[in-house]
């Protein structure tokens, strides 16, 4: 790329500096002060975070929640992408449309729909009670199981689309060759398709994971006040307790934790690409 072409990226770079890097720096500087007016420098907010098990139990539970929801997403999303990559073009566009459809509605609407599904009077409980599986309605709303389930559905497109993109680029001759050499469907999937689709799986996991752990609306509406995750914790400190510097410190810690996980996944991704090429 020559100098003339790279100049084309300048407006975007300016936008990025003004509205992303700038506020981020303000956040970091704020977290290093004792009060919102930013008069005295201090490291106390970080000390406070790491000396109180309440805070890092929330951090740990948030990171774990993301892992659970991402795995569930992968469990359901991978087969969808696999089927989608193998059907004819027309059916493929139908499946892709069905996968994308949830993104077309607001996350609030999607989440409220889930409240109706998971509630005591909801569809799931009506089925459970109707089949006589339980005498009492099952508690799903305001439980972690509920949050994981809803996150997996709400973020599904972020998992399916990257896997599908990578899968549709895999040379079909490779699976044909595998079959011609005597491997069955499962063996072909396990030894050929799966390793080749790994870069897509990892890209999907990164997107789903980051979306799940920061999903404030879904976490609070389905999880309620007793299941505290980082986004709600930050909100409570900033708006409820009016302690902006501490909220800033929590945000910075959270961001670094997420960056580390994304970094690990990214390294795995690069490794899987060399593996796929070999």
């Amino acid at each position, binding site marked *: 790329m020559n100098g003339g072409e790279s100049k084309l990226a300048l407006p975007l770079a300016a936008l990025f500096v003004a509205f992303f890097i700038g506020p981020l720096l303000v956040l970091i500087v704020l977290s290093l002060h004792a009060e919102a007016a930013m008069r005295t420098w201090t490291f106390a907010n970080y000390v406070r975070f790491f000396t109180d098990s309440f805070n890092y139990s929330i951090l740990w539970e948030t990171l774990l929640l993301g892992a659970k929801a991402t795995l569930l997403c992968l469990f359901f999303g991978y087969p969808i992408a696999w089927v989608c990559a193998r059907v004819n073009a027309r059916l493929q566009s139908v499946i892709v449309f069905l996968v994308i459809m949830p993104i077309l509605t607001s996350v609030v609407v999607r989440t409220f729909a889930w409240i109706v599904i998971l509630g005591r009077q909801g569809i799931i409980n009506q089925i459970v009670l109707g089949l006589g599986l339980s005498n009492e309605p099952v508690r799903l709303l*305001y439980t972690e199981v509920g949050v994981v389930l809803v996150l997996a559905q709400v973020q599904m497109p972020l998992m399916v689309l990257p896997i599908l993109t990578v899968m549709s680029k895999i040379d079909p001759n490779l699976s044909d060759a595998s079959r011609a050499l005597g491997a069955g469907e499962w063996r072909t999937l396990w030894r050929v398709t799966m390793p080749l689709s790994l870069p897509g799986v990892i890209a999907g996991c990164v997107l789903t994971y980051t979306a799940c752990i920061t999903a404030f609306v879904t976490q609070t509406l389905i999880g309620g006040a007793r299941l505290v995750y980082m986004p709600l914790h930050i909100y409570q400190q900033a708006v409820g307790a009016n*302690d902006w510097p501490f909220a800033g410190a929590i945000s910075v810690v959270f961001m670094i934790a997420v960056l580390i996980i994304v970094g690990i996944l990214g390294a795995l991704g690069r490794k899987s690409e060399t593996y796929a090429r070999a």
Partner: protein
Amino acid sequence: MTHRLDRRTVIAGATTLGASVAMPAILCAQSKTLVAATFPGTWSEADRNIILPAFKAATSAAVTQSIVLGTDQVARLTAAKGNKPPFDVAFFDTPQVLDAAKEGLIVEYPAAKSPNFSSLLPKFQDKWGPKITMQVIGIGHNPKKIAPPPKSWDALWDPKYKGRVGLTALNSQLGIAFLAELNRIKGGSESDFEPAFKALRSLLLNVGAIATNLGAYATLWQQEQIDIAPYNFNFVQTLKAKDVPVELAIPDTGAVGWETSLHLVANATEPDLAVKYIDLHIDPAIQAQMLKPPYDVIPTNSKVKLEGAITASLAKTHDDLAKVRGFDWAKLNPQRGALIERFNREIKV
């Protein structure tokens, strides 16, 4: 066919685009716009359906509603301090008035410019801004599941209702008022909240859901996820109007509540319009209209006769209204952050 982008087309395109973005703002500049905060729920609806048309007719100015809780309004005004405030009219419950006045976020209300101020009941004339209504809390319950109506807060601890009791987080006024009342009943004081938290810990065995905000709380009632919980008179009326099975019972320990008021924000862009807007809220004709269902807004103007649901469960006369017990917010406010923090720790699973 080929498309070529030369400098001239790009500039022409960009100018058109820019003009189309700026146009609405240019047109709007001819009629003024007031930005007014309001609470989610009953109030945003009452403001939209009753106040906004009346305001438009009286001033020909438009109103943009900013639907935000009182504590969030204080946070936003604090964040914008020194700059143009995000709204001209603040909508507070009693505790936020003290905080905002101390921080210089609101100015003293120019009562002389507000013709209806003097006909407010004396209790509701505040120098920082008129009290436009009262909010009263009691025991919300689903009459299909709980009959006869509960008589005491103790009903929440009844083992019969295990998993059926709801609560709301302390960021709402309802949450903090319930905790303060619980503390008073259990023998605590403004300086000692231990009795309230002790009672809360035993109550958690019965609690099925704690909502993070009042919107989610309303959904819990709507989905019949909870059957009994502290609730607010006006929210009950709003839900009843939507055929949700919920009633409010006033416990034997008496009605408790607080006042809601409107304020002129410091450095407001449209101070004159703001006062006109605030005055409309205490106009007897408007308050009489708001007293009707589904709003059932408790009036504060002495010229408005009490009628409807209020007289059935809360107050028959203006004197009864004056008897509704309040809280000492000047003592409670400084502890608010610590109470929220403690509550969040106590309830975390």
